[in-house]
Protein backbone atom coordinates (compact mmCIF):
# COMPACT_ATOMS: atom_id res chain seq x y z
CA UNK A 1 0.00 0.00 0.00
CA UNK A 2 2.81 2.36 1.02
CA UNK A 3 4.67 1.65 -2.19
CA UNK A 4 1.54 2.11 -4.28
CA UNK A 5 0.86 5.57 -2.82
CA UNK A 6 4.51 6.53 -3.24
CA UNK A 7 4.53 5.40 -6.87
CA UNK A 8 1.24 7.15 -7.59
CA UNK A 9 2.54 10.44 -6.17
CA UNK A 10 5.83 10.11 -8.06
CA UNK A 11 4.03 9.26 -11.30
CA UNK A 12 1.55 12.12 -11.07
CA UNK A 13 4.15 14.73 -10.14
CA UNK A 14 6.56 13.65 -12.90
CA UNK A 15 3.67 13.29 -15.35
CA UNK A 16 2.40 16.74 -14.37
CA UNK A 17 5.77 18.31 -15.12
CA UNK A 18 5.93 16.54 -18.48
CA UNK A 19 2.33 17.56 -19.19
CA UNK A 20 3.05 21.25 -18.51
CA UNK A 21 6.18 21.13 -20.66
CA UNK A 22 4.37 19.24 -23.42
CA UNK A 23 1.56 21.78 -23.27
CA UNK A 24 4.06 24.63 -23.75
CA UNK A 25 5.44 22.86 -26.81
CA UNK A 26 1.97 21.89 -28.02
CA UNK A 27 0.63 25.45 -27.82
CA UNK A 28 3.28 26.67 -30.24
CA UNK A 29 2.98 23.67 -32.52
CA UNK A 30 -0.80 23.97 -32.71
CA UNK A 31 -0.78 27.55 -34.03
CA UNK A 32 2.54 27.61 -35.93
CA UNK A 33 3.36 23.98 -36.76
CA UNK A 34 6.71 24.71 -35.13
CA UNK A 35 8.38 22.09 -32.95
CA UNK A 36 10.13 24.64 -30.73
CA UNK A 37 13.20 22.94 -29.28
CA UNK A 38 14.21 26.27 -27.74
CA UNK A 39 11.44 25.63 -25.18
CA UNK A 40 14.15 23.87 -23.16
CA UNK A 41 16.01 27.17 -22.82
CA UNK A 42 12.89 28.96 -21.60
CA UNK A 43 12.90 26.53 -18.67
CA UNK A 44 16.65 26.89 -18.18
CA UNK A 45 16.67 30.69 -18.29
CA UNK A 46 13.72 30.87 -15.89
CA UNK A 47 15.67 28.61 -13.52
CA UNK A 48 18.71 30.90 -13.79
CA UNK A 49 16.43 33.85 -12.99
CA UNK A 50 15.34 31.98 -9.84
CA UNK A 51 19.02 31.43 -9.05
CA UNK A 52 19.82 35.13 -9.59
CA UNK A 53 16.94 36.13 -7.33
CA UNK A 54 17.54 33.50 -4.64
CA UNK A 55 17.34 35.15 -1.25
CA UNK A 56 14.47 37.33 -2.40
CA UNK A 57 10.88 36.51 -1.40
CA UNK A 58 9.48 33.62 -3.46
CA UNK A 59 6.84 35.83 -5.10
CA UNK A 60 9.52 38.22 -6.35
CA UNK A 61 11.85 35.45 -7.53
CA UNK A 62 9.04 33.62 -9.30
CA UNK A 63 7.75 36.84 -10.90
CA UNK A 64 11.29 37.46 -12.18
CA UNK A 65 11.40 33.95 -13.64
CA UNK A 66 8.08 34.48 -15.40
CA UNK A 67 9.20 37.82 -16.83
CA UNK A 68 12.44 36.29 -18.13
CA UNK A 69 10.76 33.24 -19.72
CA UNK A 70 7.88 35.19 -21.27
CA UNK A 71 10.20 37.91 -22.59
CA UNK A 72 12.58 35.33 -24.04
CA UNK A 73 9.70 33.44 -25.68
CA UNK A 74 8.26 36.60 -27.23
CA UNK A 75 11.67 37.90 -28.35
CA UNK A 76 12.63 34.60 -30.01
CA UNK A 77 9.27 34.59 -31.80
CA UNK A 78 9.80 38.14 -33.06
CA UNK A 79 13.42 37.76 -34.11
CA UNK A 80 13.84 34.12 -35.11
CA UNK A 81 10.47 32.60 -35.96
CA UNK A 82 8.27 35.38 -37.35
CA UNK A 83 10.50 35.92 -40.42
CA UNK A 84 10.25 32.17 -41.10
CA UNK A 85 6.48 31.75 -40.72
CA UNK A 86 5.96 30.85 -44.35
CA UNK A 87 9.07 28.68 -44.48
CA UNK A 88 9.15 24.92 -44.63
CA UNK A 89 8.49 23.27 -41.21
CA UNK A 90 11.94 21.68 -41.38
CA UNK A 91 13.53 25.12 -41.73
CA UNK A 92 11.62 26.34 -38.69
CA UNK A 93 12.62 23.29 -36.68
CA UNK A 94 16.29 23.83 -37.56
CA UNK A 95 15.89 27.49 -36.60
CA UNK A 96 14.56 26.40 -33.21
CA UNK A 97 17.60 24.11 -32.76
CA UNK A 98 19.81 27.07 -33.62
CA UNK A 99 18.11 29.33 -31.08
CA UNK A 100 18.35 26.55 -28.50
CA UNK A 101 22.09 26.03 -29.09
CA UNK A 102 22.78 29.76 -29.18
CA UNK A 103 21.14 30.35 -25.80
CA UNK A 104 22.84 27.29 -24.28
CA UNK A 105 26.27 28.46 -25.43
CA UNK A 106 25.59 32.00 -24.25
CA UNK A 107 24.72 30.62 -20.81
CA UNK A 108 27.91 28.54 -20.75
CA UNK A 109 29.95 31.54 -21.91
CA UNK A 110 28.50 33.98 -19.39
CA UNK A 111 27.65 31.79 -16.37
CA UNK A 112 29.83 28.71 -16.83
CA UNK A 113 28.85 25.10 -17.36
CA UNK A 114 29.10 23.92 -13.75
CA UNK A 115 25.83 23.23 -11.96
CA UNK A 116 24.81 25.78 -9.35
CA UNK A 117 22.83 24.65 -6.37
CA UNK A 118 19.37 26.08 -6.09
CA UNK A 119 16.54 25.57 -3.63
CA UNK A 120 13.86 28.07 -4.57
CA UNK A 121 11.19 26.76 -2.18
CA UNK A 122 12.96 25.30 0.89
CA UNK A 123 9.73 24.98 2.86
CA UNK A 124 8.56 22.27 0.44
CA UNK A 125 11.46 19.94 1.14
CA UNK A 126 9.72 18.29 4.07
CA UNK A 127 7.66 15.10 4.00
CA UNK A 128 4.01 14.78 4.90
CA UNK A 129 2.03 11.76 5.96
CA UNK A 130 -0.75 10.21 3.90
CA UNK A 131 -1.94 7.57 6.33
CA UNK A 132 1.09 5.49 7.12
CA UNK A 133 3.00 6.72 4.05
CA UNK A 134 5.49 9.58 4.04
CA UNK A 135 5.45 11.52 0.77
CA UNK A 136 7.30 14.60 -0.38
CA UNK A 137 5.34 17.84 0.09
CA UNK A 138 7.06 19.21 -3.01
CA UNK A 139 5.63 16.41 -5.12
CA UNK A 140 2.14 16.96 -3.73
CA UNK A 141 2.43 20.69 -4.45
CA UNK A 142 3.72 19.87 -7.94
CA UNK A 143 0.62 17.76 -8.60
CA UNK A 144 -1.67 20.49 -7.25
CA UNK A 145 0.03 23.26 -9.25
CA UNK A 146 -0.10 21.20 -12.44
CA UNK A 147 -3.79 20.42 -11.89
CA UNK A 148 -4.67 24.06 -11.23
CA UNK A 149 -2.70 25.29 -14.25
CA UNK A 150 -4.21 22.71 -16.57
CA UNK A 151 -7.67 23.67 -15.35
CA UNK A 152 -6.94 27.39 -15.75
CA UNK A 153 -5.61 26.91 -19.25
CA UNK A 154 -8.61 24.77 -20.17
CA UNK A 155 -10.96 27.49 -18.92
CA UNK A 156 -8.99 30.13 -20.84
CA UNK A 157 -9.20 28.13 -24.06
CA UNK A 158 -12.85 27.10 -23.61
CA UNK A 159 -14.45 30.13 -22.01
CA UNK A 160 -12.72 33.22 -23.38
CA UNK A 161 -12.97 34.83 -26.79
CA UNK A 162 -9.20 34.75 -27.20
CA UNK A 163 -9.13 31.08 -26.26
CA UNK A 164 -11.73 30.40 -28.93
CA UNK A 165 -9.59 32.25 -31.46
CA UNK A 166 -6.57 30.19 -30.45
CA UNK A 167 -8.47 26.93 -30.85
CA UNK A 168 -9.73 28.04 -34.25
CA UNK A 169 -6.20 29.05 -35.29
CA UNK A 170 -4.93 25.67 -34.13
CA UNK A 171 -7.47 23.91 -36.34
CA UNK A 172 -7.15 26.05 -39.47
CA UNK A 173 -5.01 29.15 -39.26
CA UNK A 174 -5.95 30.62 -42.63
CA UNK A 175 -9.67 30.23 -42.02
CA UNK A 176 -9.25 31.78 -38.59
CA UNK A 177 -7.62 34.80 -40.22
CA UNK A 178 -10.54 34.96 -42.66
CA UNK A 179 -12.85 35.45 -39.67
CA UNK A 180 -10.69 38.35 -38.48
CA UNK A 181 -8.45 36.55 -35.99
CA UNK A 182 -5.17 38.48 -35.75
CA UNK A 183 -2.33 36.12 -36.61
CA UNK A 184 0.35 38.04 -34.74
CA UNK A 185 -1.71 38.40 -31.57
CA UNK A 186 -2.59 34.69 -31.43
CA UNK A 187 1.01 33.61 -31.98
CA UNK A 188 2.49 36.09 -29.50
CA UNK A 189 -0.01 35.03 -26.83
CA UNK A 190 0.80 31.37 -27.53
CA UNK A 191 4.51 32.09 -27.05
CA UNK A 192 3.84 34.13 -23.90
CA UNK A 193 1.72 31.32 -22.43
CA UNK A 194 4.41 28.81 -23.32
CA UNK A 195 6.97 31.04 -21.55
CA UNK A 196 4.74 31.26 -18.48
CA UNK A 197 4.35 27.49 -18.37
CA UNK A 198 8.13 27.12 -18.75
CA UNK A 199 8.67 29.37 -15.70
CA UNK A 200 6.36 27.22 -13.57
CA UNK A 201 8.11 24.07 -14.77
CA UNK A 202 11.47 25.69 -13.97
CA UNK A 203 10.39 26.44 -10.40
CA UNK A 204 9.06 22.94 -9.76
CA UNK A 205 11.84 21.12 -11.60
CA UNK A 206 14.64 23.16 -10.01
CA UNK A 207 13.07 22.55 -6.59
CA UNK A 208 13.11 18.81 -7.27
CA UNK A 209 16.57 18.60 -8.84
CA UNK A 210 18.23 21.17 -6.53
CA UNK A 211 20.52 22.70 -9.12
CA UNK A 212 20.62 24.67 -12.34
CA UNK A 213 22.97 24.25 -15.30
CA UNK A 214 22.90 25.36 -18.97
CA UNK A 215 21.30 22.12 -20.21
CA UNK A 216 18.75 21.85 -17.39
CA UNK A 217 15.71 22.00 -19.67
CA UNK A 218 17.01 19.75 -22.46
CA UNK A 219 16.13 16.26 -21.13
CA UNK A 220 12.77 17.57 -19.92
CA UNK A 221 12.09 19.09 -23.32
CA UNK A 222 13.05 15.91 -25.20
CA UNK A 223 10.80 13.72 -23.06
CA UNK A 224 7.96 16.24 -23.27
CA UNK A 225 8.39 16.43 -27.04
CA UNK A 226 8.01 12.65 -27.17
CA UNK A 227 4.88 13.08 -25.05
CA UNK A 228 3.39 15.53 -27.57
CA UNK A 229 4.11 13.05 -30.37
CA UNK A 230 2.40 10.25 -28.45
CA UNK A 231 -0.54 12.48 -27.62
CA UNK A 232 -0.81 13.70 -31.24
CA UNK A 233 1.15 16.69 -32.51
CA UNK A 234 -0.99 19.81 -32.42
CA UNK A 235 -3.54 18.38 -30.01
CA UNK A 236 -3.48 20.14 -26.63
CA UNK A 237 -5.45 17.46 -24.73
CA UNK A 238 -3.14 14.98 -26.45
CA UNK A 239 -0.06 16.82 -25.13
CA UNK A 240 -1.40 16.71 -21.56
CA UNK A 241 -2.39 13.07 -21.69
CA UNK A 242 0.85 12.16 -23.46
CA UNK A 243 2.83 13.95 -20.73
CA UNK A 244 0.96 12.22 -17.92
CA UNK A 245 1.32 8.87 -19.65
CA UNK A 246 5.07 9.25 -20.12
CA UNK A 247 5.42 10.28 -16.46
CA UNK A 248 3.46 7.25 -15.27
CA UNK A 249 5.36 4.81 -17.50
CA UNK A 250 8.73 6.31 -16.51
CA UNK A 251 7.88 5.96 -12.81
CA UNK A 252 6.61 2.42 -13.23
CA UNK A 253 9.75 1.44 -15.12
CA UNK A 254 11.87 2.99 -12.37
CA UNK A 255 9.92 1.08 -9.73
CA UNK A 256 9.59 -2.30 -11.35
CA UNK A 257 12.58 -2.79 -13.63
CA UNK A 258 15.30 -5.02 -12.17
CA UNK A 259 17.99 -2.81 -10.58
CA UNK A 260 20.54 -3.76 -13.25
CA UNK A 261 18.26 -2.47 -16.01
CA UNK A 262 17.17 0.79 -14.34
CA UNK A 263 20.01 2.83 -15.88
CA UNK A 264 18.48 1.91 -19.25
CA UNK A 265 15.02 3.08 -18.24
CA UNK A 266 14.80 5.59 -21.13
CA UNK A 267 15.60 2.85 -23.65
CA UNK A 268 12.57 0.88 -22.45
CA UNK A 269 10.45 4.03 -22.46
CA UNK A 270 11.36 4.91 -26.04
CA UNK A 271 10.84 1.30 -27.15
CA UNK A 272 7.29 1.58 -25.81
CA UNK A 273 6.93 4.91 -27.63
CA UNK A 274 7.96 3.25 -30.91
CA UNK A 275 5.43 0.48 -30.32
CA UNK A 276 2.69 3.02 -29.57
CA UNK A 277 3.49 4.96 -32.75
CA UNK A 278 3.47 1.79 -34.84
CA UNK A 279 -0.10 1.22 -33.70
CA UNK A 280 -1.17 4.89 -33.86
CA UNK A 281 1.26 6.78 -36.11
CA UNK A 282 -0.54 10.12 -35.60
CA UNK A 283 -0.63 9.77 -31.83
CA UNK A 284 -3.48 9.03 -29.47
CA UNK A 285 -5.46 12.19 -30.33
CA UNK A 286 -4.55 13.31 -33.86
CA UNK A 287 -5.12 17.03 -34.35
CA UNK A 288 -7.44 18.26 -37.09
CA UNK A 289 -6.18 20.21 -40.08
CA UNK A 290 -2.50 19.55 -39.54
CA UNK A 291 -1.70 20.63 -43.08
CA UNK A 292 -3.02 24.12 -42.54
CA UNK A 293 -0.48 26.71 -41.64
CA UNK A 294 -0.07 30.47 -41.94
Amino acid at each position, binding site marked *: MNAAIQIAVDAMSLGGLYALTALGIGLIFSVMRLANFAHAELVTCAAYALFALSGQPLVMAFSGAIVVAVALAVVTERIAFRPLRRADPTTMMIASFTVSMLIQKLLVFTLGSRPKSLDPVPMLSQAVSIGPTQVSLLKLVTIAVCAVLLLALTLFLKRTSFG*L*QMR*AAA*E*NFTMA*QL*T*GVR*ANAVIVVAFALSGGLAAVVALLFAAQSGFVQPRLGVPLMITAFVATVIGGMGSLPGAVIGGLLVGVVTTLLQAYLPPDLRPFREAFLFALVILALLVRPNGLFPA*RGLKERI
Partner: protein
Amino acid sequence: MTALLAIEGLAVSYGRISALRGVSLQVDSGEIVAIVGPNGAGKSTLLSCIAGLVRPAAGVIRFRGDAIAGQPLERTVRRGIALVPEGRHVFAGLTVLENLRLGATIRTDRARVASEIDAYMDLFPILADRRHAPAGTLSGGEQQMLVIARGLLSNPALLMLDEPSLGLAPRITDQVYDLIESVRARGVTVLLVEQNADRALRSADRTYVLNTGAVRLSGASGDLRGRPDFEAAYFGLDLVGGQA
Protein backbone atom coordinates in the same frame (compact mmCIF):
# COMPACT_ATOMS: atom_id res chain seq x y z
CA MET B 1 -24.85 53.27 -57.68
CA THR B 2 -21.30 53.74 -56.38
CA ALA B 3 -18.51 51.23 -56.96
CA LEU B 4 -17.93 49.27 -53.76
CA LEU B 5 -15.22 47.15 -55.34
CA ALA B 6 -13.20 48.12 -58.40
CA ILE B 7 -10.50 45.93 -59.92
CA GLU B 8 -8.23 47.06 -62.73
CA GLY B 9 -5.68 45.03 -64.69
CA LEU B 10 -5.32 42.32 -62.06
CA ALA B 11 -2.65 39.70 -62.79
CA VAL B 12 -1.71 36.69 -60.67
CA SER B 13 0.91 34.06 -61.44
CA TYR B 14 1.77 30.79 -59.74
CA GLY B 15 5.36 30.37 -60.86
CA ARG B 16 5.26 30.31 -64.64
CA ILE B 17 1.53 29.69 -64.76
CA SER B 18 -0.57 32.76 -65.27
CA ALA B 19 -3.80 32.41 -63.27
CA LEU B 20 -5.26 35.87 -63.92
CA ARG B 21 -4.38 38.16 -66.81
CA GLY B 22 -5.49 41.77 -66.77
CA VAL B 23 -8.83 41.20 -65.05
CA SER B 24 -10.94 44.32 -64.56
CA LEU B 25 -14.35 44.38 -62.97
CA GLN B 26 -16.62 46.44 -60.78
CA VAL B 27 -19.13 45.60 -58.07
CA ASP B 28 -21.59 48.27 -57.04
CA SER B 29 -23.21 48.59 -53.64
CA GLY B 30 -26.31 46.45 -53.24
CA GLU B 31 -25.64 44.24 -56.25
CA ILE B 32 -25.33 40.50 -56.62
CA VAL B 33 -22.50 39.95 -59.09
CA ALA B 34 -21.58 36.50 -60.36
CA ILE B 35 -18.32 35.30 -61.82
CA VAL B 36 -18.84 32.15 -63.85
CA GLY B 37 -16.44 30.01 -65.75
CA PRO B 38 -15.16 26.48 -66.06
CA ASN B 39 -12.82 24.75 -63.64
CA GLY B 40 -9.40 26.41 -63.69
CA ALA B 41 -10.69 29.69 -65.11
CA GLY B 42 -9.18 31.67 -62.24
CA LYS B 43 -12.41 32.40 -60.34
CA SER B 44 -11.25 31.25 -56.93
CA THR B 45 -7.88 32.95 -57.43
CA LEU B 46 -9.73 36.20 -58.04
CA LEU B 47 -11.63 35.94 -54.74
CA SER B 48 -8.48 34.84 -52.90
CA CYS B 49 -6.68 37.87 -54.28
CA ILE B 50 -9.42 40.27 -53.13
CA ALA B 51 -9.44 38.65 -49.67
CA GLY B 52 -5.65 38.93 -49.32
CA LEU B 53 -4.87 35.21 -49.55
CA VAL B 54 -2.94 35.68 -52.79
CA ARG B 55 -0.68 38.59 -53.67
CA PRO B 56 -1.20 39.95 -57.18
CA ALA B 57 1.69 40.40 -59.60
CA ALA B 58 0.07 43.50 -61.08
CA GLY B 59 -3.13 45.51 -60.96
CA VAL B 60 -5.18 47.47 -58.47
CA ILE B 61 -7.98 46.37 -56.13
CA ARG B 62 -9.96 49.21 -54.61
CA PHE B 63 -12.57 48.74 -51.89
CA ARG B 64 -14.55 51.87 -51.07
CA GLY B 65 -11.84 53.72 -52.97
CA ASP B 66 -8.90 52.38 -50.93
CA ALA B 67 -6.23 50.17 -52.49
CA ILE B 68 -6.30 46.84 -50.60
CA ALA B 69 -4.23 44.44 -52.71
CA GLY B 70 -1.67 42.46 -50.70
CA GLN B 71 -3.06 43.43 -47.28
CA PRO B 72 -3.11 40.86 -44.46
CA LEU B 73 -6.23 38.70 -44.37
CA GLU B 74 -7.52 39.93 -41.06
CA ARG B 75 -7.30 43.56 -42.19
CA THR B 76 -9.46 42.78 -45.21
CA VAL B 77 -12.12 41.36 -42.87
CA ARG B 78 -11.95 44.48 -40.73
CA ARG B 79 -12.49 46.62 -43.82
CA GLY B 80 -15.81 44.86 -44.40
CA ILE B 81 -15.05 41.99 -46.78
CA ALA B 82 -16.02 38.44 -45.84
CA LEU B 83 -14.96 35.42 -47.88
CA VAL B 84 -16.78 32.11 -47.68
CA PRO B 85 -14.26 29.86 -49.41
CA GLU B 86 -14.95 26.82 -51.53
CA GLY B 87 -15.29 23.58 -49.60
CA ARG B 88 -17.16 25.22 -46.71
CA HIS B 89 -14.33 24.97 -44.16
CA VAL B 90 -16.20 24.93 -40.90
CA PHE B 91 -14.02 24.57 -37.82
CA ALA B 92 -14.94 20.93 -37.52
CA GLY B 93 -13.76 20.49 -33.92
CA LEU B 94 -15.56 23.58 -32.63
CA THR B 95 -19.27 23.62 -31.92
CA VAL B 96 -21.82 25.25 -34.20
CA LEU B 97 -22.21 28.08 -31.69
CA GLU B 98 -18.45 28.61 -31.44
CA ASN B 99 -18.21 28.74 -35.24
CA LEU B 100 -20.84 31.46 -35.27
CA ARG B 101 -19.13 33.39 -32.47
CA LEU B 102 -15.89 33.30 -34.42
CA GLY B 103 -17.64 35.03 -37.28
CA ALA B 104 -18.08 38.03 -35.00
CA THR B 105 -14.43 38.14 -33.89
CA ILE B 106 -13.92 41.72 -35.08
CA ARG B 107 -17.07 43.04 -33.41
CA THR B 108 -17.39 44.52 -29.94
CA ASP B 109 -21.21 44.87 -29.76
CA ARG B 110 -21.73 41.60 -27.92
CA ALA B 111 -25.43 42.00 -27.20
CA ARG B 112 -26.15 42.65 -30.87
CA VAL B 113 -24.00 39.69 -31.90
CA ALA B 114 -25.90 37.42 -29.50
CA SER B 115 -29.24 38.52 -30.93
CA GLU B 116 -27.99 38.04 -34.51
CA ILE B 117 -26.79 34.54 -33.64
CA ASP B 118 -30.25 33.82 -32.24
CA ALA B 119 -31.77 35.15 -35.46
CA TYR B 120 -29.63 32.76 -37.54
CA MET B 121 -30.65 29.92 -35.25
CA ASP B 122 -34.30 30.83 -35.93
CA LEU B 123 -33.61 30.99 -39.65
CA PHE B 124 -31.88 27.59 -39.65
CA PRO B 125 -33.50 25.50 -36.92
CA ILE B 126 -31.03 22.67 -37.54
CA LEU B 127 -28.25 24.97 -36.33
CA ALA B 128 -30.23 25.67 -33.17
CA ASP B 129 -30.82 21.97 -32.59
CA ARG B 130 -27.13 21.21 -33.05
CA ARG B 131 -25.70 24.35 -31.45
CA HIS B 132 -23.44 22.42 -29.06
CA ALA B 133 -22.49 19.70 -31.57
CA PRO B 134 -19.15 19.76 -33.40
CA ALA B 135 -19.63 21.56 -36.72
CA GLY B 136 -17.90 18.69 -38.51
CA THR B 137 -20.93 16.50 -37.82
CA LEU B 138 -23.29 18.69 -39.89
CA SER B 139 -24.31 17.72 -43.43
CA GLY B 140 -22.85 19.56 -46.44
CA GLY B 141 -25.87 21.84 -46.82
CA GLU B 142 -25.98 22.62 -43.10
CA GLN B 143 -22.27 23.43 -43.15
CA GLN B 144 -22.82 25.78 -46.07
CA MET B 145 -25.56 27.61 -44.15
CA LEU B 146 -23.25 27.78 -41.15
CA VAL B 147 -20.30 29.29 -43.04
CA ILE B 148 -22.53 31.84 -44.76
CA ALA B 149 -24.01 32.83 -41.40
CA ARG B 150 -20.49 32.95 -39.94
CA GLY B 151 -19.36 35.22 -42.77
CA LEU B 152 -22.36 37.51 -42.25
CA LEU B 153 -21.69 37.85 -38.53
CA SER B 154 -18.63 39.96 -39.30
CA ASN B 155 -21.17 42.51 -40.58
CA PRO B 156 -19.56 42.77 -44.01
CA ALA B 157 -20.35 45.29 -46.71
CA LEU B 158 -19.22 42.72 -49.30
CA LEU B 159 -19.85 38.98 -48.95
CA MET B 160 -17.82 36.81 -51.33
CA LEU B 161 -19.00 33.24 -51.86
CA ASP B 162 -16.85 30.69 -53.64
CA GLU B 163 -18.91 27.92 -55.27
CA PRO B 164 -21.78 28.06 -52.75
CA SER B 165 -23.70 25.27 -54.52
CA LEU B 166 -20.80 22.88 -55.02
CA GLY B 167 -21.72 19.35 -53.97
CA LEU B 168 -25.22 20.28 -52.79
CA ALA B 169 -28.51 18.73 -53.83
CA PRO B 170 -30.71 21.01 -56.01
CA ARG B 171 -33.19 21.60 -53.18
CA ILE B 172 -30.40 22.66 -50.82
CA THR B 173 -28.86 24.81 -53.57
CA ASP B 174 -32.17 26.65 -53.86
CA GLN B 175 -32.16 27.24 -50.10
CA VAL B 176 -28.62 28.63 -50.29
CA TYR B 177 -29.60 30.99 -53.10
CA ASP B 178 -32.72 32.07 -51.21
CA LEU B 179 -30.38 32.98 -48.37
CA ILE B 180 -28.14 34.93 -50.77
CA GLU B 181 -31.16 36.90 -51.98
CA SER B 182 -32.16 37.68 -48.40
CA VAL B 183 -28.61 38.78 -47.64
CA ARG B 184 -28.79 41.28 -50.48
CA ALA B 185 -32.18 42.47 -49.22
CA ARG B 186 -30.43 43.39 -45.96
CA GLY B 187 -28.08 45.68 -47.88
CA VAL B 188 -25.07 43.38 -48.18
CA THR B 189 -23.38 43.33 -51.58
CA VAL B 190 -22.65 39.83 -52.87
CA LEU B 191 -19.88 38.65 -55.19
CA LEU B 192 -20.23 34.99 -55.97
CA VAL B 193 -18.21 32.54 -57.99
CA GLU B 194 -20.02 29.62 -59.63
CA GLN B 195 -19.47 26.80 -62.06
CA ASN B 196 -23.23 26.36 -62.14
CA ALA B 197 -23.71 29.25 -64.58
CA ASP B 198 -27.43 28.77 -65.04
CA ARG B 199 -28.10 29.02 -61.30
CA ALA B 200 -25.83 32.03 -60.92
CA LEU B 201 -27.40 33.87 -63.87
CA ARG B 202 -30.87 33.45 -62.34
CA SER B 203 -29.86 35.25 -59.13
CA ALA B 204 -27.14 37.72 -60.11
CA ASP B 205 -27.78 41.24 -61.39
CA ARG B 206 -24.63 41.18 -63.47
CA THR B 207 -22.29 38.40 -64.52
CA TYR B 208 -18.70 38.17 -65.67
CA VAL B 209 -17.56 35.14 -67.66
CA LEU B 210 -14.00 34.22 -66.81
CA ASN B 211 -11.94 31.78 -68.84
CA THR B 212 -8.19 31.06 -68.83
CA GLY B 213 -7.64 33.91 -66.40
CA ALA B 214 -9.32 36.67 -68.39
CA VAL B 215 -12.80 38.20 -68.58
CA ARG B 216 -14.36 36.96 -71.83
CA LEU B 217 -17.82 38.44 -71.49
CA SER B 218 -19.77 40.57 -69.07
CA GLY B 219 -23.14 42.19 -68.77
CA ALA B 220 -26.55 42.11 -67.13
CA SER B 221 -27.38 38.51 -66.29
CA GLY B 222 -30.76 38.70 -68.01
CA ASP B 223 -29.10 39.78 -71.26
CA LEU B 224 -26.33 37.18 -71.09
CA ARG B 225 -28.75 34.27 -70.67
CA GLY B 226 -30.04 34.62 -74.18
CA ARG B 227 -26.84 35.57 -75.93
CA PRO B 228 -25.38 33.05 -78.38
CA ASP B 229 -21.79 33.96 -77.49
CA PHE B 230 -22.28 33.12 -73.79
CA GLU B 231 -21.54 29.41 -74.15
CA ALA B 232 -18.61 30.14 -76.43
CA ALA B 233 -17.10 32.48 -73.85
CA TYR B 234 -17.83 30.05 -70.98
CA PHE B 235 -16.27 27.03 -72.67
CA GLY B 236 -13.48 28.97 -74.36
CA LEU B 237 -14.75 28.19 -77.85
CA ASP B 238 -14.12 31.82 -78.79
CA LEU B 239 -10.44 31.21 -78.09
CA VAL B 240 -10.33 28.03 -80.16
CA GLY B 241 -12.43 29.25 -83.03
CA GLY B 242 -11.15 32.83 -83.01
CA GLN B 243 -14.69 34.21 -82.97
CA ALA B 244 -14.23 36.66 -80.12
